């Protein structure tokens, strides 16, 4: 996507926190999509979200795409023997009847090749691809680098 379209996507941000919206696809609900501000566009951004599977069939998140980054990937932060690394996650299981969180210190979307720096208050779309449910697009709120998550009345912390 070119810069013009990205700019259009970024200015679609509404004052109400989109991170608190819930988007449904099939038996899946996707909510609390948020990201952190970045210093410049050189550093990778991050993407967090909560996915709930209310159905009786296991599903899996297998990919993410966004106009905000050239190379978005799924990662998992792993701490082994005290050492943190972030291997690529080929797919993130979303078992039937369970919730899965992409959250600080665990699974996350790694947004490499940012088109532009992410600024607090911006928002951008991310399309999630599920093995069975297919694709769904959510709006992601950019919070401060210090944020630990969106402030939603129903946030399941």
């Amino acid at each position, binding site marked *: 996507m070119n810069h013009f379209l990205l700019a259009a996507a970024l200015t679609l941000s509404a004052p109400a926190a989109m991170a608190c919206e819930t988007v449904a696809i099939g038996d899946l609900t996707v909510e609390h999509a948020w990201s952190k*501000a*970045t210093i410049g566009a050189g550093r*990778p951004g991050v993407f967090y979200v909560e996915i709930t599977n209310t159905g009786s069939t296991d599903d899996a998140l297998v990919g993410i795409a966004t106009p905000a980054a050239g190379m978005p990937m799924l990662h998992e*932060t792993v701490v082994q023997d005290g050492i943190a690394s972030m291997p690529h996650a080929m797919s993130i299981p979303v078992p039937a009847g369970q919730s899965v969180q992409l959250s600080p210190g665990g699974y996350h979307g*790694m947004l490499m090749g940012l088109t532009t720096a992410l600024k607090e208050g911006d928002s951008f779309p991310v399309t999630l691809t599920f093995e069975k449910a297919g694709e769904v697009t959510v709006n992601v709120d950019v919070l401060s*680098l210090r944020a630990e998550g969106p402030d939603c009345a129903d946030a399941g912390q």
Partner: protein
Amino acid sequence: MLGVGAYRTRNRPALSEVLPLPIGEMSWALTDHRDQSVRPTDWAGHPVMVFFGFTWCPDVCPTTLSDISLWLEDLGADANRLIVALISVDPERDTPAVLADYVSSFDPRIIGLTGPADEVAKAAADFRVTYRRVDKDGGDYTMDHTAGVFLFHPDGRFASIIDFHEDRRFAVPKIRRTLS
């Protein structure tokens, strides 16, 4: 770059090779985010909290810095004498100016430290910290690194580690034990 933690090859390292050195026995010389030189002796008499990270890290490092900022808020003025430092394991990209930009998002008591690669390696060895460059496609790279937060008493003795996935409610009491 080789993992610095691999510098000892014996199978059973003595406890003294696993625990961080007392601050007073450390030998590194680094530069803070305000371009001031910092040596271990500058911390004499202060409780100290240190962790290793890098500013290109989007998950573990900002999460740790957010947690530390919350702990410092909890502790309030009691933590004013506490030295709180992020030591970069990526000095190639983390210049003092970059660190200044980064730490400005967090509690103002947190300082960033960087320096020549060999001084960073010396600091990592003193703290018994491991880090390793991991190359990615397209010439980009990330760093694996020890994620714990190290605490020291005012006399420089090592106190404890707050592990990355440790229950965060235990962190503030652990820090408090180093403050008196």
